[in-house]
């Protein structure tokens, strides 16, 4: 077997693939955060909890109702997105007239509630979720499990579809206009509050979708979202929330960097994204794709 820079290619490409998968989750989550932030100026701290809820929703659909993975892939984002809409209407919408930091504190509190309830009900040891497409193929230089390949391709398609809708369609044009000047857009007869509500639901749905995708890879666990969301915050700071495509590229890119760190310097794999964040803040505070205010 040949070696690449002193590392067996199986390990290298295996970690690279895992990095791409983590990157897919970073991209889906930071995309949702960016869309929500753009319109509402709220950083959705509940995002991690909603990702976790998505995974649990898939698990419950399977174990309580017998609905398989493919059904959950469609149903779970809709269900969790609907709870998101409820949360926006009941709580977050009351804070728009205040400083944005209150939105952060509120969603942090909601995240604690959701996580606490799931921990109470299911413990923190994690529940298994069967792989819907077992097996894989040997590519010669590495073994590719089908499911992991599916996650990368599917989440990339979802990201690009979201980019297309926001940047290239009429609906997206309204959305972008409302991000700039909600008052003016409302004056043109577009129901901005409803648009905000639906956007929040959509962003939450993306998080839940990432949760469903993650369920067969990582077990379903009440604490799976809390640690992830902090990394996603760092991803968002690195990318800057100004650009949709930027969020996608930053998400996947940082996932790969993290994967490579696991191969070449495993001690730093937990911290590498935070270190990159610190460096980016020193050199380009607005983020790689952000615009200075």
């Amino acid at each position, binding site marked *: 077997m040949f070696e690449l820079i002193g590392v067996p290619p199986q390990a290298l490409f295996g970690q690279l693939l895992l990095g791409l998968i983590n990157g897919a989750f970073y991209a889906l989550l930071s995309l949702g955060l960016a869309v929500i932030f753009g319109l509402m100026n709220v950083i959705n701290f509940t995002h991690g909890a909603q990702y976790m809820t998505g995974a649990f929703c898939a698990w419950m659909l399977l174990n309580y109702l017998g609905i398989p993975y493919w059904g959950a892939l469609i149903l779970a984002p809709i269900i969790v997105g609907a709870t998101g809409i409820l949360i926006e209407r009941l709580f977050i919408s009351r804070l728009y007239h205040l400083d944005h930091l209150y939105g952060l504190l509120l969603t942090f509190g909601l995240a604690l509630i959701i996580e606490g309830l799931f921990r109470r009900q299911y413990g923190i040891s994690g529940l298994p979720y069967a792989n819907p497409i077992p097996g894989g193929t040997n590519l010669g230089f590495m073994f590719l499990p089908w499911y992991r390949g599916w996650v990368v391709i599917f989440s990339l398609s979802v990201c690009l579809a979201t980019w297309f809708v926001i940047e290239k369609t009429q609906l997206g044009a309204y959305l972008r206009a409302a991000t700039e000047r909600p008052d003016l857009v409302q004056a043109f007869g577009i129901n901005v509050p409803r648009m905000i509500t639906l956007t929040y639901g959509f962003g939450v749905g993306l998080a839940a979708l990432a949760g469903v995708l993650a369920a067969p890879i990582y077990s379903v666990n009440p604490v799976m979202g809390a640690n992830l969301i902090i990394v996603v915050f760092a991803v968002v700071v690195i990318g800057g929330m100004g650009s949709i495509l930027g969020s996608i590229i930053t998400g996947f890119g940082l996932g790969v960097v993290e994967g490579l760190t696991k191969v070449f310097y495993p001690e730093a794999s937990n*911290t590498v994204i935070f270190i990159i*964040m610190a460096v980016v803040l020193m050199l380009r505070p607005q983020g790689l794709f952000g615009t200075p205010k």
Partner: protein
Amino acid sequence: MQRTQNWDLRVFAALLAIGVVAPLLVYPVFLMKVLCFALFASAFNLLIGYVGLLSFGHAMFFGFAAYVTGHLAKVGTVSLPYWLPVLGWNWMVIGIAPLTPELAILGGVLVATLLGLIVGSIAIRRQGIYFAMVTLALAQMVYFLCVQAKFTGGEDGIQAIPRRAMLGLIDVSHDLAFYYVVLVIFAAGFLIIYRTIHSPFGQVLKAIRENETRAVSLGYAVSRFKLIAFVISAALAGLAGATKAMVFQLASLTDVTWQMSGEVVLMTLVGGMGTVFGPTVGAAIIIYMQNYLAGFGEWVLVIQGAIFVVAVLIFRRGVVGELIAFVRRRTSKTVAAPDTIELAKPAR
């Protein structure tokens, strides 16, 4: 201004008097815990309440200082990295005997101050929500460093930290004796914060909170003011953590987690952001609640979350803020501006 200051100091003197006699009625360890968290929350409040910066990572100063203090008091070595040609990076281990509590705490505070300087100079490059996210991310980084570093003892933490005689003279092994040390530390930290807020420096901080652009145009080096405030806050959070390590004779990962950062936000929010006594009151309420609810397991998390939600939605002034507003309504006919921070202007 002068009148409220006199009033504040009178309340402070009364609280201190209560603090002196309190151990006759209440378990001293509980009181020491409250004092440590009250100082921690007051340090956090210096940033959110008077500069408008929400740090979501203050546990890194609290917890890391606790580790440093615990290490100095128990092992008493300092390791410095150095680089030599051929040999590369190495650690130079300087053995100093295990330290007495006051020196160990001082060491913890110094390290927290240095950490505050580093983190602060990175974090103040962004404002508002980004500042919160950056501090949270950097705190998570410190958390992972603590998990991996050898001196922190990993999952075990540093246990059985010895509490030697203060200055080599005063025996503080008894909890009641150490309680009065903690009370003095709290009072000193509290007065530092009080002086900071009521100094010309503090006035500039408030100006930055109200309108940063205007403060810049008035010629203030806003970044430097923010950084100094951040470092003071980090140092005092470190003082609180270092003291807590000596109280419980334990430094563990719990104190560096993001949950701890969230708890100090909650204490300050419940007590009243931007009020002098709010964080102390909030810390007492939350610690009491945690003790009371200790048997309920995961419900504590749910209840804390619920308090967050309720406080943000309908109780933004906090206990002390509401009290001040109530007194103002009673004493003046004119509608006084509430002495609470509506952090900034409405969205756009």
